[in-house]
């Protein structure tokens, strides 16, 4: 098989291959599937459902905060506890069931072997097992909510989480399982990238999304066990009544915070690194220009992952740890800003002199740059010791991590979803609607979270069910933004569902991408590629050109095997 199997006609001429969606259609063929694409789709469905629930909870929070004394839960302790349960659940769902699995597990699972040119991940059965661990964890977490909602905040800070009468143990056990699901996914990805690269796919020919996924997987494997142990100790402490974290029994609450953030800060990079990988892919494709500074981007992913392990202490600046320790963590926190900045500059340099096609995925990628820049700088302000003192635990922090997690990770995920949607479903979505929603989301997002930056700087603490009247105007603005976001997301659900059933058939390469997933049909066959994929230098846009007849980009000529070297 030396010639490419690029065009659909050719593929069909060789052998009529059914795509992965059509090959078998029984329910059994889905729930026991070992196909990474189907597992990815299942992850996608579950995490989107979780995102819907988490989003609705966010709307409840925002509605409550319309008035200083609370619009929904008001009057006293029991009512406030319900509010506390709502924001706790919002946090837990969004962090552990949406952000952590969404990009790495859903898009990662689907795209990693395709971008790599492999037929599947290294351990397909382990992959399916990870998915069911994720489901089991989610079920336990939901069960704990049904039995008696947890009100500890998603951080489970001791000793409140030990005293709190809610079903913390069940919830924590659920998150423990979610953690192991994440470990196995990371393990699978590392082995896949090491061992399943096809002929010609050297390390420095890998698409940059894979470098980002690789860096993510390292964090998943090495940091997740620590939060596992932390949560396990929390359970032991609650069940056996011993003093590890509980000061009333001689334990140390700060110890819990160290352990918790040792995982949870790197976990932030589990969310943001793949997001950066997606943005990299989108920007180069829609600029129709080779990525600028491939090695710097690849290495900055690894640098972020490695430095990200060492910055957890910046969550503990105001709790009385020694000034020396504060200084070290502050220093490392600043350091992690550098590789992030490098990425932004490289993306801009990629756009320079490109042919920029402002399609929906590109708009999301550009939104990402703006929001991530704001998120990054607010992060730097929080990382500086003296300014952190007056911003710690205020809405400034809430706004900061929403800029990074939502404006960063989720916006990039949406970019990726739109970018790969034709490949995953074989259908196109409505471009005008998608652009409209992207713009609306950008405006609504800033309307929601920018006032929170201001009100935080003015002193409003986070996790308040009620607040001082002087903060109200900001809170109202924020809530209006949140409602607009809801409209945007519901519209998006509408046009995506429409696309799923009525959308135009997607061509093989609608955007002009040069990575391997665009060389197979949309949606891909179960084996991903008919024959071995041709691999050469990545991001060479001279090799594709638009064919108006089929509405798709096609490869110009079959490649001579290994001609170009960098």
């Amino acid at each position, binding site marked *: 098989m030396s010639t490419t199997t690029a065009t659909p006609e050719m593929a069909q001429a060789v052998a009529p291959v059914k795509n992965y969606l059509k090959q078998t259609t029984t329910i059994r063929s889905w729930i026991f599937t070992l196909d990474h694409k189907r597992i990815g789709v299942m992850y996608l469905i579950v995490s989107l459902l979780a995102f819907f629930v988490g989003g609705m909870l966010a709307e409840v929070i925002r509605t409550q905060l319309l008035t200083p004394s609370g619009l929904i839960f008001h009057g006293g302790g029991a009512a406030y506890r319900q509010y506390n349960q709502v924001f706790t659940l919002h946090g837990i769902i969004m962090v552990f069931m949406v952000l952590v699995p969404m990009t790495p597990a859903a898009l990662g699972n689907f795209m990693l072997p395709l971008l790599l040119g492999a037929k599947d991940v290294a351990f397909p059965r382990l992959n399916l097992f990870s998915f069911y661990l994720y489901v089991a964890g989610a079920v336990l977490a939901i069960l704990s909510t049904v039995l008696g909602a947890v009100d500890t905040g998603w951080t489970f800070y001791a000793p409140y989480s030990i005293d709190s009468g809610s079903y913390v143990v069940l919830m924590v056990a659920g998150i423990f399982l979610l953690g192991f699901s994440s470990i196995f996914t990371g393990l699978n990805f590392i*082995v896949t990238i090491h061992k399943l690269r096809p002929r010609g796919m050297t390390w420095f020919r890998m698409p940059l999304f894979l470098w980002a996924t690789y860096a993510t997987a390292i964090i998943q494997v090495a940091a997740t066990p620590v939060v596992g142990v932390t949560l396990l100790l929390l359970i032991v402490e609650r069940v056996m009544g011993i003093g590890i974290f509980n000061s009333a029994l001689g*334990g140390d609450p700060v110890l819990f915070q160290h352990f918790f953030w040792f995982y949870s800060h790197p976990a932030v990079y589990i969310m943001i690194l793949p997001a950066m990988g997606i943005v990299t892919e989108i920007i180069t494709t829609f600029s129709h220009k080779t990525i600028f500074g491939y090695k710097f981007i690849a290495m900055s992913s690894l640098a972020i992952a490695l430095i990200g392990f060492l910055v957890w202490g910046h969550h503990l600046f105001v709790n009385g740890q020694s000034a020396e320790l504060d200084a070290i963590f502050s220093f490392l926190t600043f350091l992690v800003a550098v590789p992030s900045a490098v990425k932004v500059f490289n993306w801009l340099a990629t756009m320079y002199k490109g042919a920029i096609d402002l399609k929906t995925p590109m708009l999301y990628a550009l939104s990402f740059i703006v929001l991530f820049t704001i998120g990054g700088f607010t992060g730097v302000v929080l990382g500086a010791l003296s300014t952190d003192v007056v911003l710690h635990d205020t809405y400034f922090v809430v706004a900061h991590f929403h800029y990074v997690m939502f404006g960063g990770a989720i916006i990039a995920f949406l970019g990726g979803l739109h970018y790969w949607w034709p490949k995953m479903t074989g259908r196109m979505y409505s471009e005008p609607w998608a652009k409209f929603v992207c713009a609306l989301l950008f405006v609504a997002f800033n309307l929601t979270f920018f006032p929170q930056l201001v009100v935080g700087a003015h002193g409003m603490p986070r996790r308040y069910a009620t607040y001082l009247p002087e903060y109200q105007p900001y809170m109202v603005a924020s809530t209006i933004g949140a409602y607009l976001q809801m409209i945007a997301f519901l519209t998006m659900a509408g046009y995506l569902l429409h696309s799923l059933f009525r959308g135009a058939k997607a061509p093989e390469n609608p955007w002009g991408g040069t990575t391997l997933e665009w060389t197979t049909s949309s949606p891909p066959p179960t084996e991903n590629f008919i024959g071995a994929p041709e691999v050469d230098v990545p991001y060479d846009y001279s090799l594709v050109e638009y064919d108006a007849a089929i509405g798709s980009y096609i490869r110009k000529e079959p490649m001579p095997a290994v001609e170009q070297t960098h």
Partner: protein
Amino acid sequence: MTEDYGDTPTPAMPPDDKVLGITGNKKTPAIHIPGAGNLGMALLIVALGMLFASSLLSYLIVRLRMHLGPGAHVHLPAGLWISTVILLVSSGTIHWAMVAVRRDQEKPLKWLLATTFALGVLFLIMQTSNWLSMVTAMHRSFAALHAQADVLLPGGQIIPADRVLVQHHDLLVLFYVFTVLHGLHVLGGLIPLAVVTLRAFGGRYSRNYHPGVRYSVMYWHFLDIVWLLIFATLELTF
């Protein structure tokens, strides 16, 4: 890739650890990935290593915060030494099993694997008995401590008797957490080892193809090292 991973499938014997791409009822032929299992195993060990490292660290921090005076009334059961020896011996037997399979010595392979398995079971039994003896020791020490007065630390700080009691209790609970965690770890190794042993008796492994044996050896040695670290930590701090 020149390294011999010992997982090259013989034509007659399809690899047992990778069956790719079952969609629905259709099985596509397996693809052989040299060394994937080894790397996966190594990463699993890294993850488990982080798990044990962080739990040991948390134990040490908790232990250092305690004000237990000299001559604490809880002693580790002597049976722990016996379990340690059992585990060390089992590490030896599984190592020889690896040597045997590399030399294509089928009979020693079978029996060494079976012995390792038996030693693993024995280890778990020993640990259970150690736990039980700790339970009685706990009751005894509590009774003794009830009669005890407050503890005066060298710095002049006085720890009330009931606080000392609580700390002893905490220490014991941590002992259980550790040993149970490690016990589960051993159990997690025994089940695959049983499968590997049965397959060895079925004549599945050869000089060129023995991934199961190899993974078991990696896991088992790791198990051994973790136990030695836990045991040393407990011995030094109890």
